[in-house]
């Protein structure tokens, strides 16, 4: 074990905290890579990162995904329902969070009835994160329209799931604990990404008609 890690552990820093903080740079670099090189946008960098950790904190990833999808569906329906009332932004979001919250509660209870105890016992931290996701969702809906918000939500989910598998990859965790400074390798990678002016992969598709020789 690395000296730095030992030092942290002997001084009472929990192992989980250590792992998460060391893995965070890798997750956010992956998100940056997906945006700049692949062209998958998601809701910025904070939302997919925090959803990744919310997925890690649920007992099983499928429960996390279920909650995520429920939030998005209920969020969309509530928005359509509230549209006619022409409410101001913050009260509207407050109502949506309330309704989404109750829907999640209902989901957990239904899970319990069908003996999915894993769902009901998901800790409060990931649930709260997922519920507040609805604000980001509404903001994007206003800014870019309903369809774009759906696409971005789906992209966020995809990136978060990939992030989940990276962060729970045993081999990576072992390497990180042995060589914690590896995390800092993301700095030069990000400098490279930050200067990258090439086409994104999705743009090759978007502009295929221009690329195709005539």
């Amino acid at each position, binding site marked *: 074990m690395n000296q730095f890690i030992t030092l942290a552990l002997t001084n009472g820093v929990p192992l989980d905290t250590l792992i998460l903080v060391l893995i965070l740079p890798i997750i956010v670099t992956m998100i940056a890579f997906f945006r*700049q090189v692949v062209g998958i946008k998601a809701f910025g960098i904070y939302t997919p990162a925090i959803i990744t950790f919310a997925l890690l904190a649920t007992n099983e990833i499928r429960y996390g995904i279920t909650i995520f999808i429920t939030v998005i569906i209920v969020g969309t329906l509530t928005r359509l329902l509230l549209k006619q009332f022409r409410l101001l932004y913050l009260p509207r979001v407050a109502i949506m969070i309330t309704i989404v919250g109750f829907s999640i509660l209902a989901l957990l209870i239904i899970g319990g009835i069908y003996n999915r105890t894993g769902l009901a016992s998901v800790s409060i931290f990931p649930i709260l994160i997922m519920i507040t996701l609805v604000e980001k969702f509404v903001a994007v809906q206003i800014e870019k329209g309903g369809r774009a918000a759906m696409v971005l939500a789906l992209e966020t989910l995809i990136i978060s799931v990939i992030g989940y598998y990276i962060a729970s990859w045993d081999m990576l965790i072992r390497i990180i604990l042995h060589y914690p400074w590896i995390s800092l390798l993301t700095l030069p990678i990000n400098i490279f990404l930050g200067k990258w002016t*090439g086409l994104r992969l999705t743009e090759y598709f978007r502009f295929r008609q221009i690329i195709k020789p005539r």
Partner: protein
Amino acid sequence: MIQLFRNSRKILGMNARNLEFIRPNNLRRAKRLADDKLRSKKMLMKAEMPVPRLINKIKDVDELENFDWTTLPESFVLKPNRGFGGEGILVVYGKKKNFSDTWIKADGSLIAVNDLKTHIRNIIDGSFSLSGVPDIAFFEERMKLLKLFKPYAYKGIPDIRVIIYNKVPVMAMLRLPTKVSDGKANLQQGAIGVGIDLATGVTTTAVLGKNKLIEYAPGTRLLLSGIKIPYWKTILTLAVRTQEISGLGFLGADVAIDRDLGPVFLELNARPGLSIQVANLDGLLGRLRRVEGLKIKTVEKGVAVGMNLFGGEIEEEIEDISGKKIIGTVEKVKLFGKDGKEIEVEAKIDTGAQSSSIDTKLAIELGYEDLLDYFASLEMPTDLPRANVKQIEEDLRNKYLVGHPDLEDIIIIYSSSGVTIRPKVKLEFDMDKERVISKVNIVERTGLKYPMIVGKRDLKKFLIEVK
């Protein structure tokens, strides 16, 4: 494969747009100006640019409560000052008859003062501004749709997006609102983008939404290519001037054409979208690289460089070689009649006819009624054997030409519909900006599609392209 690679190198992607063009060229101050519609309007007005007239603005709830609704005109547009993507814009077409506080919206539905108030309250509260910051609502004059665009546009007003870099217009497209885009000229919302040849202002290829190539306006048989945009040079000049005024080095300028006012500047855009490349089927990066580093001193020079570099290449080349203009089989013609009368018609180009002819009705409009009356009163031979035609013509000329100053000649024409004796008059017309001095004969063409035929004798300066 190499071709694919080369083509993709010409395309401007998001990364390059942000890092190489927006960042170094559009300073924060200038970007803020572009995002603030009222401030940019003020600035453009100061520089004597044509902009939609500001009717009134509402800054806060107090102003909203004390607002005098009777001061609003019949039709107007309500906008959030920091709105984006066309969100929060309300277009009002007219007042409902006998009501002082109810208006009619673009889709025909009614809107009362109370609805307007709620909408404005939402604007003031920042519902439509990017980060939800408090905003200002303002009313401005509604633009009137140009007749030319009427068949192509659904509800809203089409506009022309021009990308300007280093004082040179590099690419342009016509944006047509559709049913899907709900009358908004925003490609992301499903509007149509039509590429424009910068040299001529004629539309080329079209894209629906973000990347579906189309040829016809949806639901019609109207070709989207070949539309000639009026005031083209003025539009480019306006766009380049805006770059000077705003200080945005890389700019998307939106110009609309009002039926009465002509080109009107709509909006500045510090982060212009990339779909314009699909509409033009050409990459922006290749074009931007070509104007990078050029030293452009005046607006006129910039416009000229853009027009020369990015358009009309194929046609101009042929025109240069032959010295002749290329026209289609149907061409717009501007006729110059008597007493300064000017009439524009579509003429059929007919290489099977010797001389040009115009319809009787058109001749009357051009001021030749008197001549036609005189001609009708003449006594004409009924027996016209082909062998003696020259002799008969000669006789008629000797007899009648002196009788009326407008009568240039009399000819006998054998056509598929029979033999006719026709009067000929001197007539000048413009075709594809080329002045033609012609003698045209006048004949009944009612029921035929085009009121004019341009014959061989007047086509010496032209090449005809058959599509």
